[in-house]
C-alpha cells in the first residue's frame, strides 16, 4: 500500500479527505473511502461552539431539569426514541456538555446540586450515546466528547469525574454492542472547560475528533484521547 499524505494540512476539519490512498488489492473500501460527509452532532446548547466548527446536521439534546425522583425521565425517553428514528450517518459526534461547570467540595454540595452535576448529565449521556450509536451507519464512527479534569486536578470535580468515567465505559459497552456492524466508538476527554479555557482549545478538540472520525483506524475502537496538552 502506498499512501500519499497530500491533504494532511486539512487535519483540523472533519470534512477533510484524510489521506489519498492509492488503490491496492485487499484494501478495504472502508479505508479507501474519504470522510466526505459532515458528522451528525448530538449535543447540548453548551456545545454549540463545537457543533459550529464540525458543521453538519445537529440534534440538540434537551435541557432537562431532573429532580431527585427523575420526574422528567419520560421526556428523555421520548427524545431518545425520536432521535433514534432519524437517518443514519457515517460519522456521529456526541457532546452532552453541562452549562458552566464549577468545582465544589463534597461537603458543600447538597443533593439538588449533586443531581444537577452528576445525575442529569449521566442520564442525558446514556440516552444520547445510545441514540447516537443507533444513528451510526454500518462501518461508521461515533466520537463522544466529554469534560474530564486532569487526574491531579480532580479535587472538587467528583461529579464530573464520575460522569467522565461513566461515559468512558458507556462508550466501551456501545463499541461491543455495535461491533457486529463494524461501528467504532471513541472518546475524547478534555479538561479545557473545567480549567476555565472553554474556547481556547476548540481547535484541538476538533482536530482530535477529526482524527477519530477518519477511516484510518478501522481496527481501533474504544480509544480514549485525553487532551492533556491543552494550554492553561
Amino acid at each position, binding site marked *: 500500500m502506498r499512501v500519499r499524505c497530500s491533504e494532511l494540512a486539512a487535519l483540523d476539519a472533519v470534512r477533510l479527505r484524510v489521506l489519498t490512498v492509492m488503490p491496492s488489492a485487499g484494501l478495504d473500501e472502508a479505508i479507501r473511502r474519504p470522510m466526505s460527509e459532515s458528522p451528525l452532532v448530538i449535543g447540548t446548547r453548551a456545545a454549540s461552539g463545537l457543533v459550529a466548527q464540525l458543521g453538519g446536521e445537529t440534534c440538540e439534546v434537551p435541557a432537562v431539569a431532573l429532580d431527585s425522583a427523575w420526574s422528567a425521565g419520560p421526556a428523555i425517553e421520548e427524545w431518545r426514541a425520536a432521535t433514534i428514528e432519524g437517518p443514519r450517518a457515517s460519522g456521529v459526534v456526541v457532546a452532552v456538555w453541562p452549562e458552566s461547570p464549577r468545582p465544589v467540595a463534597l461537603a458543600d454540595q447538597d443533593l439538588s446540586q449533586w443531581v444537577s452535576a452528576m445525575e442529569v448529565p449521566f442520564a442525558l449521556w446514556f440516552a444520547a450515546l445510545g441514540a447516537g450509536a443507533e444513528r451510526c451507519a454500518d462501518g461508521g464512527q461515533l466520537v463522544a466528547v466529554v469534560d474530564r479534569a486532569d487526574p491531579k486536578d480532580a479535587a472538587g470535580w467528583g461529579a464530573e469525574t464520575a460522569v467522565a*468515567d461513566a461515559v468512558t465505559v458507556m462508550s466501551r459497552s*456501545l463499541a461491543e454492542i455495535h461491533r457486529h456492524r463494524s461501528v467504532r466508538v471513541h472518546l475524547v476527554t478534555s479538561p479545557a472547560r473545567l480549567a476555565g479555557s472553554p474556547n481556547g482549545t476548540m481547535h484541538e478538540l476538533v482536530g482530535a475528533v477529526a482524527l477519530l472520525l477518519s477511516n484510518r483506524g478501522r481496527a481501533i475502537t*474504544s480509544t480514549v484521547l485525553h487532551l492533556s496538552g491543552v494550554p492553561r
Partner: protein
Amino acid sequence: MIGNSQPVVLVTGASGGVGRGIALALAAAGGPVWVAARRRPEGQRVADEVDAAGGLGRFVECDVGDRGSVARAVAAVVERDGRLTAVVHNATSGLSPVPVAAPAVSMEDLRDHVVVSVRGSYLLAREAFPHLVATRGSMVLLTSEAGFQGSVRLAPYAAVKAAVRGLARAWAREWGGDGVRVNCVAPLANSPAMEMAMAADPTLAERVLGRHPFGRLGDPVDDIGPVVRFLLSEDARYVTGATIMADGGNFPIC
C-alpha cells in the same frame, strides 16, 4: 482506621453476597461491624454471623439512596459506638444482574442503578465524612470489572460502576489533606447476583471463567473481604484513590 484503635465499620448491602463476605472478614478485626441493609431478617442474620466470627455484629436498616435513611444509619453508629472509622459501600441495584439492551433501558431503571450505586456513594460520603475526618478514617467503594471494560448486556451496571471509580479518584484528591482515604475494590466473586447473571446468560460462565487464571470465582469471605480489610487497615495508610482488582487476575489492567 483498623490498627490504631478498635475499628467501627459500616458495610452497605451486607445482608448477603460480597457484602456479607466483607462483613465477616472484618469481624476478624474485633470491632463493631455494622451490617447496613434494607432487609432486617437477612441483615440481622449476618450480624449474628459476625458475632460468631469474633466481631461485634450490629444491624442497621439503611436504604442507601434515601438521604434520611443514610443519615439515620450513620447517626445510629456514632451514637452507639462513639465514632465511625470506615464505610464500605457495596450495595448495588437489584437490577444489576438483569440483562438489558442499552437503547431499551428505561430512565426509571437507569435511575435505580444510579441512585443505589452513585447517589448512595455521595450520600454516605456526605454523612460519614465529618466522622471519618475525626478518626482519619477510610472509605471503600465496590466497583467491578465491568466498570473498566463495559458490558454488552449490563451497560447501566457497567456505567455506574465506572462512575464510582471516578468518585474515588476525585475524593482521594479532595480528602487527602484531612487524612481520609478512599479506594475501590473490583471483585469477581461468587454471589447471588453473579448466580443470577449466569442464569440469565448461559454464555457468561464460559466467558468469565474460560480464560481465568485460576478458573474459579472468588470467595466473598476468604478472597474479597480480606482485600477490603487491608484497605481499611494501617497497612494501607499510603494507599488512596486506587482500585484494587480482587478478581484472580481475570481482567489485566496496566
